[in-house]
């Protein structure tokens, strides 16, 4: 996550250094249609800020961004800024508006462009992107991504997050939003407070999953020398692994149950709780699961 943030800062820095080719404010367009197209490098960055409504990214094979949409009634201007390697689109609402009428933005971007989008309540969807990275922030909007970037980073408070595709480094954080991830591999990090998280992944080299009361349901395999850690307070942890998975397993719960098809759980000798310590093969892989009151189950696929 930090890596991606650093990259974003770097991109912003480069953006600030880059020559501003054009700034096109589309003023006084409240309630009107938006329809613009601007050229950009195929591997450039598309940044979008839209408070409410929706942001939809789809891709095409042109080195160009097409911006279409329906401006909300409170829109003062849509600011489009282009530099040598990026396009920034900002929907500016009138400052005196208390309840913002949402603006729907539909963007077609180069397939290999990177994406950054910020919203408060706007839903965000991305499909088809194969850019370097995708960074999405929302408070209450839902996020849906069907893409295969090199890196994915998503932050949401109450919005749900759905991802499907192939990504080798992913990080998703929510407070109460549900998380469903299908297809990530490599480094995967998921953190939630009360939202449930479900993962159907390929081979994971570094997996870190944290929850307070949300359930973690994970189906994956862990690479040789890989690390998988699952920490939950009251949420259940359900882990499904290939029957051939080799690893050193450690699991412990204070008041939850522990069921495993890899080794036998035993009562903790001092104090309450159950624990499991089991080694399957010797490939350097470590799998650790811990809960306070949540149940732990480790099953084969």
């Amino acid at each position: 996550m930090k890596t991606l943030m650093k990259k974003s800062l770097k991109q912003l820095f480069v953006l600030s250094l880059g020559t501003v080719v054009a700034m096109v404010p589309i003023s006084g367009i409240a309630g009107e249609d938006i329809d613009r197209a601007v050229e950009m490098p195929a591997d450039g960055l598309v940044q979008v800020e839209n408070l409410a409504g929706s942001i939809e990214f789809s891709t095409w094979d042109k080195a160009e961004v097409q911006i279409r949409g329906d401006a909300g009634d409170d829109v003062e201007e849509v600011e489009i800024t282009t530099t040598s390697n990026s396009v920034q689109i900002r929907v500016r609402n009138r400052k005196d508006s208390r309840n913002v009428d949402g603006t729907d933005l539909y963007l077609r971007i180069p397939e290999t462009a990177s994406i950054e989008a910020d919203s408060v309540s706007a839903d965000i969807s991305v499909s088809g992107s194969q850019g370097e990275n995708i960074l999405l922030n929302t408070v209450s909007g839902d996020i849906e991504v069907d893409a295969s970037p090199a890196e994915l980073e998503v932050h949401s408070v109450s919005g749900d997050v759905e991802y499907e595709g192939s990504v080798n480094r992913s990080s998703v954080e929510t407070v109460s939003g549900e998380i469903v991830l299908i297809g990530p591999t490599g480094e995967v990090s998921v953190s939630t407070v009360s939202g449930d998280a479900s993962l159907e992944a390929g081979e994971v080299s570094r997996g870190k999953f944290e929850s307070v009361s949300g359930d973690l349901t994970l189906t994956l395999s862990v690479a040789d020398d890989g690390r998988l850690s699952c920490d939950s307070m009251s949420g259940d942890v359900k882990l499904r692994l290939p029957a051939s998975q080799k690893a050193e397993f450690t699991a412990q719960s204070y008041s939850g149950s522990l069921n495993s098809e890899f080794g036998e759980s035993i009562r903790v000798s001092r104090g309450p709780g159950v624990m499991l310590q089991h080694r399957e093969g010797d490939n350097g892989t470590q799998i650790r699961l811990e809960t306070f009151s949540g149940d732990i189950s480790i099953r084969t696929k």
Partner: protein
Amino acid sequence: MSPKMSEKELLNRLAELPREISPQRDPWPEIFKAIGNTPAGSGSSRFQTSRWFMAVAASVMLAVFAGLVFQPMGEENVVTKDFVALNTPEKGQVEVSVYENTSVFRMLNVIDAEYLAAFREFINTGNSHPGLTPQTVEKIEMGWADLRVTEEALAVALEKHPDNLFLNERMLELRARQLGFLKQLVSLDRNNRRLTI
């Protein structure tokens, strides 16, 4: 944890620490002074939000202090005692032990400043428009409530088994999550305000 100190040594040190200590410093008057200087909310939503922020703030203070309690101490750090009374909107006065040494005390001042800065940001969030919808605030509150319920359950378990390493680690982890929760909200709030103000 310091690589030089084993978990057992840390636990032994924790067990040796006093449970109650006399107050020397109470940061809350300053905090409430800061709160008092902010514009008063007019709507019930703002009041609710403010209460929520207060709850977050109080808990973060608890988290910060607890973080200090569980912070591993090197040989050079001689532990002295301190005690802080926190006024929380939910439970009234809560007494929190703080283990203080010179470096920790310096850290405490820094954290106080960071905390106040973060808190002011939350106050601004409550006043920003369009602000968060009541549904969003409710969901955030529920998330925070989950953290608090878990915290209470852990505290009960720790009362029964104060030397249980696993429980102490869970509490430490929970504190980290509480701080992480706040940081995440601050970060998202920055976006919110950047887009709206």
